[in-house]
């Protein structure tokens, strides 16, 4: 389990500009972020750079964080809710090294939280920024592979194809079977991919007091949900949106309200359910 306060005080690597990216690139990303905030849910193209880690490991989120971060910030990085997994540790140490930034595992202490595939259980507050790592920013991509077409569909707000896909899921499974990356409507205008967070986290996006920024490195897109912005998970009147529930509680902290991961703990297949959010879980023990 992670220390509660991590002191990743590494000397600045003089070979790099502050926060790794050059100033011209940061300005370009900052302009994209500003337009993303002005048009909630719209995917702004940006000149994504090569980062010192492979696509799929958070290159988009890292570039957004690099454009944001300063010496006054406190950074938290989570991967599937955990502060102590490889991706989270590497990204946290990356910014400790190239930006001399304080890091934390406590959600409440962080000014910037970069996340892969979860939203923290602890409610976020005004002034915090949540940076999502996004693999495929286009929510319609699996339904329409052509970028020119999906761009037109967004322009016309023509989202029938998404409703049909959800209907087909109901026809086949009796319910909307999608459990993660569940599409949302932002401010009544754009359908947006919330990144592969479990649908359990979708309600936390709605009217959150924190700013949400989404960065897709391979696809070179940035999009945003400003604070207090309506984010509605798509559904039907007779099949309303529902989140996952568990009959078990967390084996470590006893929570019945958080998102639980199922763990196999021995060779006999014994199972435990534990909180996915390690900071939340530790704070309750």
């Amino acid at each position, binding site marked *: 389990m992670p220390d509660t306060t991590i002191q990743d005080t590494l000397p600045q690597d003089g070979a790099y*500009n502050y926060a790794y990216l050059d*100033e011209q690139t940061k300005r370009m990303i900052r302009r994209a972020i500003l*337009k993303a905030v002005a*048009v909630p849910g*719209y995917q702004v193209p940006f000149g994504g750079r090569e980062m010192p880690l492979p696509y799929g490991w958070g290159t988009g989120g890292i570039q957004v964080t690099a*454009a944001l971060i300063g010496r006054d910030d406190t950074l938290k990085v989570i991967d599937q809710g955990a502060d102590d997994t490889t991706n989270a540790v590497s990204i946290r140490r990356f910014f400790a090294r190239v930006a001399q930034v304080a890091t934390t595992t406590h959600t409440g202490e962080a000014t910037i939280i970069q996340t892969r595939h979860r939203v923290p259980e602890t409610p976020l507050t005004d*002034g915090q920024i949540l940076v999502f790592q996004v693999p495929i920013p286009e929510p319609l991509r699996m339904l329409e592979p052509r970028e020119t077409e999906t761009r037109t569909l967004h322009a016309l707000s023509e989202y029938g194809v998404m409703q049909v896909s959800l209907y087909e899921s109901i026809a086949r499974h009796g319910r909307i079977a999608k459990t993660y990356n569940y599409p949302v409507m932002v*401010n009544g*205008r754009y359908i947006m991919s919330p990144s592969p967070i479990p649908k359990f986290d979708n309600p936390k996006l709605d009217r959150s007091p924190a700013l949400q920024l989404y960065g897709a490195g391979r696809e070179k897109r940035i999009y945003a949900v400003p*604070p207090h912005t309506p984010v509605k998970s798509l559904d039907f009147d007779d099949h309303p949106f529902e989140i996952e529930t568990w009959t078990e509680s967390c084996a470590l902290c006893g929570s019945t309200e958080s998102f639980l991961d199922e763990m196999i703990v021995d060779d006999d297949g014994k199972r435990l359910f534990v909180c996915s959010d390690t900071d939340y879980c530790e704070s309750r023990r």
Partner: protein
Amino acid sequence: MTMTFLAPGFADPSHDAQRLFRGVLDAFSHPGRIVELRDAPAGPGTLSIAAIGFLLTFADRETPLWLEAGVDKQEVRDFLRFHAGAPIVQAREAATFGVIVAGGGEPFAGFAIGTDTYPDRAATLVIEVPALDGGRSTIWRGPGIDGEVRVAIDGLGDGFWPAWSANHALIPCGVDLVFACGSRLIALPRSIAVEA
């Protein structure tokens, strides 16, 4: 030959730009909130500190600038060309950023509003106003605002808010605004509906 002195830009370019960016981002994320751009350079004098801070943070050689006649002074051009490297253009439609003095007619006419497929290709305009409060009271609603917020920017002409309503109706297209006075600013993204 006359000697002109160039006002200094950022003392610490990377960290100054980062801090000012976060201030502007805070303003765009909370339309109507008055944000102070701390320790922005004073600039050549004709423009407010907030306008100078905004332009040095976002403008560079990739972003053509348009200056209204009232602020299109040689010292301003020299300052922005040297410190930001931004080309200064005559045509409004070519500009990524524009600087406008409050009170004129048709403040947004002619600026890029983006397209339905690329609404991000729209201009951001800095409007110099005499005061960010004490003017005619308006009610703002939209993304970034919890319910509604009252804003009373001073010095805007009679046609300003009707023109804004027309701009807001273009969603997802439209220009985004920054009202600047002294070292403080208020952002008004196109997503915000204003009841005047």
